[in-house]
């Protein structure tokens, strides 16, 4: 389409490339999903070690394992890592793997952009963690409240690493958001109307709408903070008329939708696992879907509940209190419908189902404690205490992570063709479930007993000693639980045979209609969808007469001859890798170390080269 030929310095990979180069240049959503999952799990280990350091420091009063400065770095990086490098990319791993399979597509809309998202995520995470090597890791909390992050109070480079790392991760998320929204809107199999999409797809869509709309706000806030720190502007400098509260508004206007970005994917997973193992359709499909949308929508009007003690005034607090409580309604609807799904089912109890059920149980606790700080006077005692730490670990760990683990056990045979060992899995579940409650339940009490968050240590005689010790013991057990999972993964790869059939769980959605693991092109023939849970009704046509999904009046697709040679998949490309690398090096070059402009220039050159190369790369398929 263009008269310009662009020189390629490195031979373009073709579709037969394999090995490391195959992974580096892949644009296959399944391989990218795997890379997301593996990378995020490695970051999870890093964030987990940080968590254990925090707990060891707090095990006894006047702990001296970490200096206060290092403690601040560790808790900042723990939060940042778990949110941006673990839960979000783990969700992205599932988006990548499952979305095309469930909507009956051969890949996402923009495969190279998809690869770019992954590489940007990887390099962004590396940049963020490089700060450890300089001794100046970010130390201002994942919320980075100004003016504690302004140069006068935080002159070293840690927060700058944090800003630029997050910018890169934000770009990665935005690119993925554009990609998945386009994929879901545009690449559904013929006949799959919106109301026939699996709930997981719906939740993915809501999450990506939130990503696409929320991340620009944090991008701007980070730009402003970066300019304050590096170029002497005054956005959050009160001595020049800036307002630190403005940072909080910007941050939480992003930060609260972010909370739903973290939890909705797990809700989607649970909504797939429960019907499959109950052998029943999801209860109240449209209510589950619309409550998900309602949560995503209302999530935009509650951000100031993170700021009840900032002094916005009674009117604002009252308004945000009521809007926050309103979110409990669609959330409750979801929980009731999940129980409704189990009710009257034929429930197969295994690790995947137990994780899903535990998700509901733990999420209910997190939700109920959430209501107690939706009320500003009550929150005045709870804000910034361990009660809040307990609350959000019940929704983030007890919610998101248990949900994600449920998805891992559920889809593992689809990913690999092998099962995860069920016995080890039950041990994994039991240890994690028990240790999780042992770690985080006492924190409710600690918070109500007046222990603030983010304290590097605490004095003796406050009555906090035993609870903290118990919590630390729990966290160590939690570490053991994670190792059991790791062992299960290794065991599955080395010892479990490749026995998974197409449809090992008697599944309901399209991914179970194709081999495990799926071929490169996913579907021989793009399916023609007639029903919600189409695959289930293909297997059990006699159950279809009373389904709400409705029959499709779509004319049958033009015939496919089923010859695989006709299926053209996009070529691999190394430009996404270099574009991500160039972006990270370029933005990393803004951090004011000696000679940083040289690094920035090198990054810019890599970026422009790969951008142009990408633009002029002939694309097959």
């Amino acid at each position, binding site marked *: 389409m263009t008269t310009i030929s662009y020189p390629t310095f490195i031979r373009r990979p073709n579709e037969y490339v394999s090995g490391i180069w195959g992974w580096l240049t892949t644009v296959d959503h399944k391989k990218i999903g795997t890379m997301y999952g593996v990378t995020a799990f490695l970051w999870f280990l890093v964030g987990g070690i940080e968590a254990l350091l925090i707990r060891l420091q707090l095990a006894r009063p006047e702990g001296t394992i970490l200096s206060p400065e290092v403690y601040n770095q560790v808790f900042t990086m723990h939060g940042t890592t778990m949110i941006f490098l673990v839960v979000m990319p783990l969700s992205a791993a599932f988006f990548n793997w499952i979305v095309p399979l469930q909507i009956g597509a051969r890949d996402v809309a923009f495969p190279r952009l998809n690869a770019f998202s992954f590489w940007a995520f990887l390099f962004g995470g590396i940049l963020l963690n490089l700060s450890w090597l300089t001794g100046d890791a970010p130390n201002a909390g994942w919320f980075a409240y100004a003016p504690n992050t302004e140069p006068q109070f935080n002159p070293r480079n840690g927060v700058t690493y944090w800003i630029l790392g997050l910018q890169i991760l934000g770009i990665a998320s935005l690119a993925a958001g554009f990609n998945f929204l386009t994929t879901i809107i545009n690449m559904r199999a013929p006949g799959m109307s919106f109301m026939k999409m699996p709930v997981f797809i719906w939740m993915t869509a809501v999450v990506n709408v939130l990503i696409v709309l929320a991340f620009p706000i944090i991008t701007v806030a980070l730009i402003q903070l970066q300019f304050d720190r590096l170029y002497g502007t005054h956005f959050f400098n009160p001595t020049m008329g800036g307002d630190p509260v403005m940072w909080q508004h910007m941050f939480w206007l992003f930060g609260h939708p972010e909370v739903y970005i973290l939890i909705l994917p797990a809700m989607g997973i649970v909504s797939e696992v429960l019907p499959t193992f109950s052998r029943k359709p999801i209860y109240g499909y449209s209510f589950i879907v619309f409550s998900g949308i309602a949560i995503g929508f209302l999530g935009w009007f509650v951000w100031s509940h993170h700021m009840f003690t*900032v*002094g916005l005034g009674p009117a604002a607090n009252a308004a945000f209190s009521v809007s926050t409580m309103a979110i409990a309604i669609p959330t409750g609807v979801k929980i009731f419908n999940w129980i*409704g799904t189990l009710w009257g089912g034929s429930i197969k109890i295994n690790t995947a189902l137990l994780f899903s059920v535990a998700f509901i149980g733990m999420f209910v606790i997190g939700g109920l404690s959430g209501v107690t700080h939706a009320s500003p006077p009550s929150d005045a005692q709870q804000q910034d205490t361990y009660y809040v730490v307990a609350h959000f670990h019940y929704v983030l760990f007890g919610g998101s992570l248990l949900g994600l683990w449920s998805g891992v056990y559920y889809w593992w045979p689809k990913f690999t063709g092998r099962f995860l060992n069920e016995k080890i899995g039950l041990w994994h579940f*039991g240890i994690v479930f028990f240790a999780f409650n042992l770690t985080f339940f006492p924190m409710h009490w600690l918070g109500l*007993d007046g222990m603030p968050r983010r304290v590097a240590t605490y004095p003796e005689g406050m009555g906090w000693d035993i609870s903290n010790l118990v919590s630390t013991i729990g966290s160590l057990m939690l570490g053991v639980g994670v190792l059991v999972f790791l062992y299960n993964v290794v065991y599955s790869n080395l010892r479990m045979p490749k026995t998974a059939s197409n449809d090992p769980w008697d599944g309901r959605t399209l991914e179970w209609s194709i081999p495990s693991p799926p071929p490169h092109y996913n579907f021989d023939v793009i399916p023609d969808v007639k029903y919600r849970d189409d695959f289930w009704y293909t297997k059990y046509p006699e159950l279809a007469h009373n389904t709400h999904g409705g029959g499709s009046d779509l004319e049958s697709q033009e015939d496919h001859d089923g010859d695989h040679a006709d299926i053209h998949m996009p070529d691999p490309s190394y430009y996404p890798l270099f574009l991500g690398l160039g972006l990270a090096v370029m933005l990393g070059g803004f951090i004011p170390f000696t000679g940083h402009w040289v690094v920035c220039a090198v990054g810019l050159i890599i970026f422009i080269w790969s951008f142009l190369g990408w633009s002029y790369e002939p694309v097959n398929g």
Partner: protein
Amino acid sequence: MEIPHKFMITKKLLKYLSLSSLIAILLLSCSPHHEQSTFTNAGPVAQAQSELFYLMFWIAGIIFVLVQGALIFALLNFRRKEHPIPGSDFKLPDIPPKQVHGNTKLEILWTIIPALILVAIAVPTVQTIYSTYEPPEDSDPLEIVAMGHQWWWEFRYPDEGIVTANELRVPTNRPVKVTLQSQDVIHSFWIPQVAGKKDTVPGNTNQMWFQVDEPGNYSGQCAEFCGVAHARMRFRVIAEDEADFNVWLNAMKTPPKTTSSEGYGLFLAHCSMCHSIDSYMNESYEKEITVQDDRWADWFHNQEESARVSAPNLTHLGIRTMLAAGQKDMTRENLIAWIKDPSDIKQGTRMQSVATVYQGGAAKLKEHEVEAIADYLLSQIPDGWGSVSTSTESLEEAEVMVWNTPEEHGEYLFVNQGCSGCHSLNEDEVIVGPSMYGLIDRSGSKVEGLSAEEYIYQSITYPNEYIVDGYAANVMPQIFINLSEEELNALVSYLITIK
């Protein structure tokens, strides 16, 4: 694969649940002393906040039992009735259950009922938001200003003209209206037993109120992450009945028993550029606020060079019960340890990073000097506080001293006002400031039109205007504030004799 003891697992699940709640109950009951517990309410504000929490807690408790009960019941009751056949995993001997898609009436029901419950929570919530915002209209609240600093608290009583730090005295049974401010970063003012927290935000002014019902000590703590020593930013509220409180108010306006000692000189030399100690004087309130702002601005705009930063007011330190922002009891031992090496008690404290005397680690003071400073500070007790008997002796002693010559007077002042702490009398010896040796020979030529005497006089009264090359500004304390015209002249006449 076979799943062994399926039923056991779910029973275990139940057991774990009950076990963790049992542990929680144990934890609730076994620790005896909870000075920051939000369950012990010492005033109406905390009381109102607790009541709201209890309301929600019980509602949440009921919902918790119902939902978890339904969940566990469903899990146990609707287990798949199958007998796995070895070798053929995941056989499905049963037929699919009835394919239920939902029930609109049920959906509406479980949308409306939670909504009604939330209304029942929202109404008292909004009421309490307003009732905990302003003190009751018919009351006569005590107005105070709480300033968050990295990492200590400044408390001002604007109506009484009193400034103090880290220890807030309030009367019982009278509302206290707090104006919350900060100069540096965001902090949060929190006395768990008395009232929920409110942030101090630089550039903004917040307000809250509380009231304490019973006399006693209440523990407070900064609740917003504010930097490296956040965990060490505590304070104490001492509630007293109105009469005792008024005694304290008067005492804070009374001079201390002693004004002069070896420690006083050392304090002036090393500490007084940041710490005020004389706020009992008339008109000192406005001065203290201005000086504190100056100290702050000095540090904020020139962190590398500034030798001062805003710091706690130490007036009548001897009657405070804790030191270093609620870190230790106020004992001689602790105070000496704190002065010697503040970082040992509070890592990151600006006292160590800013004050000249600490450059390079612990205080560059001799053991007896530290003790002298500590003794001086502990002697800062208002005249008439506690036992009255021996109070006036030393004061009188100081005032009846008679000087034969101005030079002799000047020499006494040079030592007792702390000049000798920084200025050596030996040639070319630099302690902190320039040596005073041979001052008369160089002073005359420093500034055109000023004689040596005039130059020395000026540089004592306006130190920053006459900085000698190679020395930092803002280091020398403004001791002239404490000196009369006669004393200043005596000091000058002594200084020109040093050769």
